[in-house]
């Protein structure tokens, strides 16, 4: 059963006097469980709309949307996905840890349990000691990490992310990419990830979906270079030692991750590899072709 299955999906916005806007047309997309798929394309090509259709925040004009074997609406009501928007969208009147708890709070999870879970997630994104602060007391990048922790609160098997690293500086961004890859590895979640950055799409994804505008459609699908643990040139990882289980119920140690977990070196190794540059070139050409 696929994590996401879009068949012949189209979306037309009726803007009244200015006529209809064909945001999406004939979208065919399958995301397998545990697969990392990026959407890339020029501004206005319908990436956000596609994500919002999967999240049931927007209704498709035609076609079928199946999320984890259910309708998009049922998947939303069942909390089968976690979502992170381009803006962190934290609630200022809640502390950082209470923001991470929000999805569990909405669904009536007992206070002690959700507090424990939120603490675990904050540790995962490296913000354990900031739990009691207000969102405005954190930097933008830290807020974004809180939003990512929040999207993981219900242990979703599907993560939807709309340019979550858009506002970050290059170094923070690279660190967050490695962190996200680790999280995806550890949780086994499928990820549908919108980005404007070609290198980001390539380094994160199993597949990069290239889109073009007017009407928004998929023009190309290119294999990404998602790193796996121990795949770095340094070869420091121990093969097969990684238990494939989901997000730790047992809290991870704050900083020192086990050796078998995807390491920063593995990710950096991919960024410096020839295959990576080849894939970047391939995506760039696909984008150029699409906009021509």
């Amino acid at each position, binding site marked *: 059963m696929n994590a996401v299955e879009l068949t012949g999906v189209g979306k037309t916005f009726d803007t009244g006097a200015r006529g209809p806007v064909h945001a999406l047309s004939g979208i065919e997309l399958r995301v397998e469980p545990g697969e990392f798929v990026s959407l890339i394309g020029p501004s206005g090509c319908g990436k956000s709309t596609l994500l919002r259709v999967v999240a049931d925040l927007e209704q498709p004009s035609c076609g079928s949307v199946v999320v984890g074997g259910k309708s998009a609406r049922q998947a939303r009501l069942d909390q089968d996905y976690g*979502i992170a*928007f381009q803006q962190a*969208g934290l609630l200022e*009147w809640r502390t950082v840890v209470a923001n991470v708890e*929000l999805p569990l709070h909405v669904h009536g999870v007992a206070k002690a349990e959700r507090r424990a879970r939120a603490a675990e997630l904050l540790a995962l994104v490296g913000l354990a000691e900031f739990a009691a602060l*207000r969102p*405005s*007391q954190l930097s933008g990048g830290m807020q974004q990490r809180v939003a990512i922790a929040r999207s993981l609160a219900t242990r979703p098997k599907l993560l939807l992310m709309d340019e979550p690293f858009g506002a970050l500086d290059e170094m923070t961004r690279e660190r967050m990419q490695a962190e996200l890859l680790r999280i995806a590895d550890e949780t086994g979640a499928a990820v549908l990830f919108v980005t404007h950055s070609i290198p980001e799409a390539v380094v994160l994804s199993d597949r990069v979906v290239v889109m073009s505008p007017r009407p928004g459609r998929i023009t190309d699908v290119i294999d990404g270079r998602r790193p796996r643990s121990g795949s770095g040139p340094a070869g420091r990882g121990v093969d097969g030692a990684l238990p494939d289980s989901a997000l730790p119920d047992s809290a991870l140690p704050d900083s020192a991750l086990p050796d078998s977990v995807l390491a920063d070196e593995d990710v950096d190794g991919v960024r410096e590899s020839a295959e990576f540059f080849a894939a970047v070139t391939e995506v760039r050409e696909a984008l150029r072709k699409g906009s021509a």
Partner: protein
Amino acid sequence: MTRPTVATAVAGPRRRPSLDRVWPPVAFGILALVLWELVVTFSGVPAFLLPAPSAIAAQVVAAFPTILATAAVTGGNALVGLVVGFVMGVGLALLAARSRIVSELATPLVSAAAAVPIVALAPVFTTMFGSTTEVPRRLVVSVVVVVPVFVSTARGLAQVTPVHHDLMTALAATPGQFARFVRLPGAVPYIMTGLRLAAPASVIAAIVAEYFGGLQNGLGSRITSAAANTAYARAWAFVVASIILGLLFYLAGLLAERIVTRTPTRREP
């Protein structure tokens, strides 16, 4: 997400009212009082036009127990009306945010109430409820208070950012949860602004409502009766008490707003 109150509170370290900032207005006030006294004493302004500050002060001292008692009555009416009007204003705005029908009924009504001089209702209420009860005045105060509280609460409730809206939809939150987790807490600074604006207005309404008959036990009725009896200094003594009462409510409102919307200062642990 930018909220005006938050932005200003974050803008800089909290300034304490230092002696430097307090003495100019105090000095100015004393100077004005001295000038007033001199002008009244030496120019022969008739007492019904302007009694001397010393004469007013003497009356304040002489009638102090009466002033306290009447101020308590008027202040009590203002407080009851303020609380009732505040609860009604917030409640109505919440309902209006939840339901189109309530919104379409309440919004024009409250807007109309804002345009009408509400104290003009005082004689009507007095006739309706009788002149032996405090109800008519408290009602006038409530109506005066409802308007700013409703307007600013409604504005606050409408301030939901699209990303918060999407977030709550994605979380499959019920409308009630949406109100509890997002709308209401987000509106708190606006609600408190409404309260701050309404607090001094409630005192004004309570005093003016007394001018239109009913019980003769408040500051407003004492001002009219003293003036009618040509006891001008005495009338002014009650005016002074009214000013102080209004200032008290104003400061209480300001303090409440400050306390509730206080934001933590930015710090890295």
